């Protein structure tokens, strides 16, 4: 993938963000609050955290909010009116400061939501969203992007990738047409970026396992109930991993209201015990070990086969957020390294 390179100083970057805001765009970016950094709507560069390793949540909410209205309805006097969302009214959004792994995750989300029948709400949000990622200058023991095809300075998925060069300048790689359009009219804020190298500014993330060995490893282990029970015995079955995950997209549909109301889409998780429960009481996955296996199978086996994209980008969020330290890297490595 070829990208056009420019450089931009910190003050010019602050100006660029304020221009986006003046143009009516919303900016979703990492913001520090107490000991946590998480995505929030921001007004200026000052509010944005750039020195953290990773945010608690992923930026998926920009395209797949935790609750969103699919449509509203009015049901009275034997008549029902369904009012569709005005997709044209969805706001223009810049997701700023997401990591290269997060940008790659949008590719997985696109594959899910537009599989066969396009999801119009997701697609409309996507069309109005630009991804301005910031490369990673630090990583921690939970990061494993390089094991799943990414990297701390990978450009795939981003519209623009910025790298802090450490001398007050950011290297701006304009990856997509959307990224190029985004900078129209702001050319004066940039200088040529040719010759500026980002490699020395990037975090080192060692490859932790051989991806090629994961799917065969999963297939070999599939019926080994003791193995999955061993991995998942301490798992509590909450949805923290799924909800902070940048690619997890399971959802529920819920109606609210009476005469007037809304049909809502909201996040859900295959880790919940009731996720697959039939009304009859029959549950296809009654055990937490089966639900844990489903999580890994879905990401590392089913999605690659059906949607042609891996369901994990190695951001490490699930491991950091897990109340009981269900470290996904450790578990996937154990699967990849298991002897045939």
């Amino acid at each position, binding site marked *: 993938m070829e990208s056009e390179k420019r450089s931009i100083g910190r003050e010019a970057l602050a100006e660029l963000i304020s221009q986006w805001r003046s143009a009516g765009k919303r900016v979703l970016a990492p913001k520090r609050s107490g000991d946590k950094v998480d995505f929030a709507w921001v007004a200026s560069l000052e509010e944005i955290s750039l020195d953290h390793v990773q945010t608690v949540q992923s930026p998926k909410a920009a395209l797949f909010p935790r609750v969103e209205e699919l449509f509203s309805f009015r049901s009275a006097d034997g008549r029902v009116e369904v009012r569709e969302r005005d997709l044209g009214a969805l706001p223009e959004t810049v997701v700023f400061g997401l990591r290269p792994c997060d940008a790659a995750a949008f590719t997985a989300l696109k594959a899910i939501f537009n599989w066969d029948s396009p999801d119009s709400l997701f*697609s409309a949000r996507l069309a109005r969203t630009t991804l301005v990622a910031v490369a990673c200058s630090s990583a921690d023991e939970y990061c494993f992007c390089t094991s799943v095809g990414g990297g701390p300075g990978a450009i795939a998925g981003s519209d623009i990738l910025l790298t802090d060069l450490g001398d007050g300048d950011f290297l701006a790689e304009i990856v997509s047409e959307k990224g190029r359009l985004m900078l129209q009219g702001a050319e004066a804020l940039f200088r040529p970026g040719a010759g500026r190298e980002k490699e020395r500014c990037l975090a080192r993330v060692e490859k932790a396992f051989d991806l090629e060995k994961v799917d065969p490893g999963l297939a070999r282990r599939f019926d080994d109930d003791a193995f999955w029970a061993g991995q998942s015995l301490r798992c509590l079955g909450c949805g923290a991993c799924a909800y902070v995950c940048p690619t997890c997209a399971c959802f529920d549909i819920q109606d609210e209201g009476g005469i007037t109301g809304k049909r809502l889409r909201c996040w859900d998780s295959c880790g919940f015990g009731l996720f697959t429960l039939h009304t009859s009481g029959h549950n296809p996955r009654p055990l937490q070990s089966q639900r844990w296996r489903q999580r890994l199978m879905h990401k590392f086996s089913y999605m690659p086969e059906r949607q042609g994209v891996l369901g994990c980008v190695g951001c490490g969020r699930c491991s950091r957020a897990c109340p009981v330290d269900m470290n996904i890297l450790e578990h996937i490595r154990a699967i990849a390294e298991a002897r045939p």
Partner: protein
Amino acid sequence: MNARDVFKPFLMRIEQVTEEAPDVRTLRLVFQNEDEGRGFIFRTGQFGEYSVFGEGECTFCIASSPTRQGYIECTFRKAGRVTSALAALETNEIVGFRGPYGNVFPIDQWQGKNLLFIAGGIALPPMRSVIWNVLDLRDRYRDVTIVYGARTVADLVYKRELQEWAGRDDVKLVTTVDPGGETPDWQGEIGFVPAVLDKLAPASHDTVAVVCGPPVMIKFTFPVLARLGFAPGDIYTTLENRMKCGVGKCGRCNTGKYFVCKDGPVFTFAQLQEMPQEY
């Protein structure tokens, strides 16, 4: 973006309500917008998401045959929030419908074969669509045998249609109720479906079997069919995994690499044997 939003339901008017059994009803639905109705095509085996606005959506197969045009029917048991709300509706009230979704019973491939339908309890509705479909095209198929069981006589659904099938000389109908579920004047068999099937011992040669029922009935019926010589690829069933979106996105019906809503709901026993036992 001119395509219809996948989550926007068609508005359907309830044309007729039929009480089938305790807490089991059939709704006949017609499109409120006639243009939408004219453009609507489905094939037997497909399902949809039916909704009561303010309560939510519920997944059922389309229980009527595509050969009967101008309406669709669904049959459901009142059990949860949405089915309770559906059960409270009366003629002329409006419900939502999204669909048709999923794959179909390959009835074209079954031409010239004998057909054996085996159903239990509230699982007759998906079968009813395909039964009427082949009966409406009767000359394309050879022997048609229907084995249907329920817990009690009262729980048998489509009683009028069962009578009609029983009266036809081109259909062999065997009905059964669980031991203790019979009434004094019960003329049918007494026993569980797999045992009745075993006793009936239909020939497997050139025959396709379609099995729909609760998981426990399916579990014990497959071995009987295998003993009778049915190949796994000639046994069809329809899975009823929990679903929300119906279009391969919400993740709920994912079973192994399959999405029941897109790759199913119709599967052969050969396919089930390759799937994890998560249905």
